[in-house]
């Protein structure tokens, strides 16, 4: 069985800090609550809970234009609402953006209402040519930094997708 949060959450926070993230804008997802709580209480970050996922895209994009590292954290359903914002702001202006989302609807998800995310989340990412990295186990949390660097190197957005096994353990 994979280890559970909050140790995982602490490692995610450490990795974000390592790559220079200061601002974290978030919307909740039950799987993410340990991560959000950890970041909220970590002085290395400015945590901004936002009203909707698109606001996180705007906020983090503006922070980039002020040289502040940032990350947008959200559930899969929320991610599905930000395609316009991503393509209009981050694609049109070539503004880097680092996103973290949940891989809802995949094997192991207990909630049947995420069936649409299981069917369409990855195809949507492919349809807009948005690079993604699935992080499924604690040993891969280091990939967060590599993906963050990728957004800055190529001036594009990228999303890492956390699985249930990573965030809640594989029970």
């Amino acid at each position, binding site marked *: 069985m994979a280890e559970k949060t909050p140790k995982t959450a602490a490692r995610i926070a450490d990795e974000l800090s390592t790559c220079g993230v200061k601002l974290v804008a978030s919307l909740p997802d039950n799987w993410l609550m340990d991560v959000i709580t950890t970041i909220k209480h970590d002085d290395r970050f400015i945590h901004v809970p936002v009203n909707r996922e698109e606001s996180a895209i705007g906020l983090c994009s503006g922070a980039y234009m002020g040289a502040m590292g940032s990350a947008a954290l959200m559930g899969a359903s929320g991610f599905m609402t930000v395609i316009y914002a991503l393509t209009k702001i981050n694609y*049109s202006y070539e503004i880097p953006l680092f996103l973290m989302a949940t891989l809802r609807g995949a094997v192991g998800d207990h909630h049947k209402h995420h069936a649409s995310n299981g069917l369409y989340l990855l195809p949507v990412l492919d349809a807009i040519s948005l690079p993604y990295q699935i992080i499924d186990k604690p040993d891969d949390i280091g990939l967060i930094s590599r993906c963050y660097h990728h957004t800055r190197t190529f001036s594009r957005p990228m999303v890492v997708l956390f699985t249930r096994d990573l965030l809640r353990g594989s029970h």
Partner: protein
Amino acid sequence: MNYIECFRAIARHRTSEIVITSAGNSGQAWWLATRDSVASFYLDASMSLSTMFASGLALAQPELEIWAFMGDGAFCMNPGMLMVERQMNLPNLTHFLVSNRVYGATSNAGLPNFEDNDYAAIARGMGLERVFEFRSIDALEREFPALTAANTPGHTFVVLEVEPFSADEQKLEQPPFDGPELKYRFGRHVESLTGCEIFGYQV
């Protein structure tokens, strides 16, 4: 008040402020009034995100004064942004809500509940304290200094009640920049003002 004249008046009061415009008319009007291509970021087609973008910049660079324009069409799409703005309460951010009571960027199409929307009341209802409304150029010219002089700390919300663009005004030039060009022009300016390094990221 006339939309263009309103923007010209605001431009006259500008000193060193960094400006973010929203999609459509506000970008056209600001470009006409200023021809600024370095200290203004024309966030075209951003549908309700100009002030969130501005908030990120204001947070990152607190020594910069940021003005952000947003139409009421964009505002209707995401009024909850004010909750985030109030929560952040950035003293270097001024949110200008340009209320023309239409979707100006799309041929002045009708806005829901346009006759009754009270944007200042909505802002106050979300806890904002520095809320201003202007309905005439005279009032704007006379009271503009109050925007920065008020004692209440926190970010500023300004409602500008303007007439929709005329048919001729709708044909005004859009800021003639591709996205990446604007990003670099604006970003280099921010770098020069603050000493920060936006584009020198190295692994």
